[in-house]
């Protein structure tokens, strides 16, 4: 397992850079991951998506369905891709500090 430093903290990450344990995740960490996923700066809309994912994950221990994310944030998938060029799972979830999605998704 590789280790990287984000916003002054050490994190274990998998080979694709997903944080393994998000206990120490905070907004500064998210902002530090963002550029690696093609997000130059985090706007209010970015935070709406990231916070929804984050809150859902805290409650249910798994990422939200993409359709649910779209409906709850009132953004369509095209909009999510505009905000996060690498997509909701690889981009937005990674910035939100979630581990890489698992299973046939």
């Amino acid at each position, binding site marked *: 397992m590789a280790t990287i430093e984000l916003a002054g903290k050490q994190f274990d990450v998998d080979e694709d850079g997903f944080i393994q344990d998000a206990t120490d995740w905070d907004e500064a960490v998210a902002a530090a991951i963002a550029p690696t996923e093609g997000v130059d700066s985090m706007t209010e809309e970015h935070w709406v998506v990231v916070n929804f994912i984050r809150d859902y994950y805290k409650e249910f*221990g*798994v990422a939200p369905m993409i359709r649910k994310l779209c409906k709850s944030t009132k953004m369509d*998938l095209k909009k999510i891709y505009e905000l996060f060029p690498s997509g909701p799972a690889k981009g937005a979830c990674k910035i939100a500090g979630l581990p890489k999605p698992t299973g*046939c998704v």
Partner: protein
Amino acid sequence: MNPSVKVEEISKPADPLSHVDPRDLPILPKPYDDAEKIPAWKPLSDKAKGEYESSLDDTIALSIRKPASKEEEERLIRQFLDGLEKLFSRENNWTFLQPMTLSMENCAKCQTCAEACHIYEMSGHNEIYRPTYRAEVLRRLYYKYLKPGGALFSKWLHGDIELNWTTIARLAELSYRCNLCRRCAQTCPLGLDNGLITHDLRKLFSQEMGIYAKELHDNGSMLQLRVGSSTGMNPLVVKDNIEFIDEDTSERTGIPIQTPWDVEGADVLLIHNAGEIMAWPENHGAFATIFEAAGIRWTLSSESQEALGYDNINYGLFYDDVMLAKVAVKHAKAAKKLGVKKIVLGECGHAHKALTVIADRVLTGELNIPRESAMALLKEIVFSGKIKFDPSRNDFPVTLHDPCNMVRLMGIVQPQREILQLLCPQFREMTPHGVDNYCCGGGSGFAIMSGHNFEDWRMHVSGRKKMEQILHAFHDELDPSIRKYVCAPCSNCKGQMRDLIKYYDMWNQCGISYGGLVELIVNAMADAQPGYIEWGLF
């Protein structure tokens, strides 16, 4: 690429044994015939090369750590030899011993299988991907270490091979350069099975040495046994998601649905690949709409511990018999607990093979509950006259991908075709199709493996034949303004289709989209609001 790499060279230093050079790969049809316009292959990082075994080719599937000492290397070699012995002993491998032994001892080296393999062909005939390359390595080890007098004579009789850590590490990686599609086995004049050989190598590595793809084991089988699903969904989450899908689908179709949970004595227990629920919710929404409209007495199961009721995946099929048996028994228990008449498997190819065919050897007595494919039930419903259809709603070009486990392995060829012939006026076959169709390139778990640059290999090499077939099927209508649909009734295949479409920007450049079978059925339902299929969303 090293065009003349020999079997015995697998033990010799070389970094790597054979390159995969994009310039060696066959040129794709238009508009991908300009190699410059195809996404570039991302090289492995120096860090990855330093930490993990990467001396086979230019990618890594398994992230095998390099042994820290000579002692560790020797221990690993001993483990491998123990595992090799077990593969060929009745008490440890009674299920596959006979076909394995036949495959070891009867190969005529005619190479008919090589020409049937999409990976070998579309790698530009890279020797290390020849189906008989890895089989021949195992065959030489088999004769050298397991046969009387092997150490003395096998070199002359069967060819030389040295067993060192390099051989083992490369062989492990090489067992993950095959989709286990068994097109080679289908074509072998002697009925030998190089797919099984690859499968049993993976089994040796997992069961004996703890070498596996973490997507399949840690985040797959183990996660499923812990929480109920490889997606990480526990019963609370899956019920919440299904409730959302029910509402969302009802809004879209105008037909109210409510998915039944845990109904005792139902006729049908539907088990999806839970990836559908997370990533392709329109698939479950369509199943529910069709079943309700047809008046099927069906249910989902929320079992997650003693039994597994809502995720039909069984990745053990790809790499580990112990995992396979554990999961299969728990699937059957979910059906037994509810006392349903039968299990119907949703659109997931490997789950079909695992639970209906392979598990037949472990499910005995009261666990031997009837299990069948959704394809058959869907055909029955579509042709029953219970639902009114308007095929003009599906008046766009459609082609059909044949999931290997469902079609080549089980012979479920016709039901899905007859549905498409009825409901899709512009349905056309791929070439070849049916049991001769090629793997999507994501088979055997590859569709969910994308660490390091493995996705590049999957998109350039293993998925290349499917790219070619899809482009050929739509060759006269590649204009992006014409919406086209690749029907792939399997979650794993759909994942690969989605990745191919994204990687090659096929929606924008060619108007090619993809989805399952049930979505097309609901899209043609005359009583539903039109437009169930959503285009261009990936």
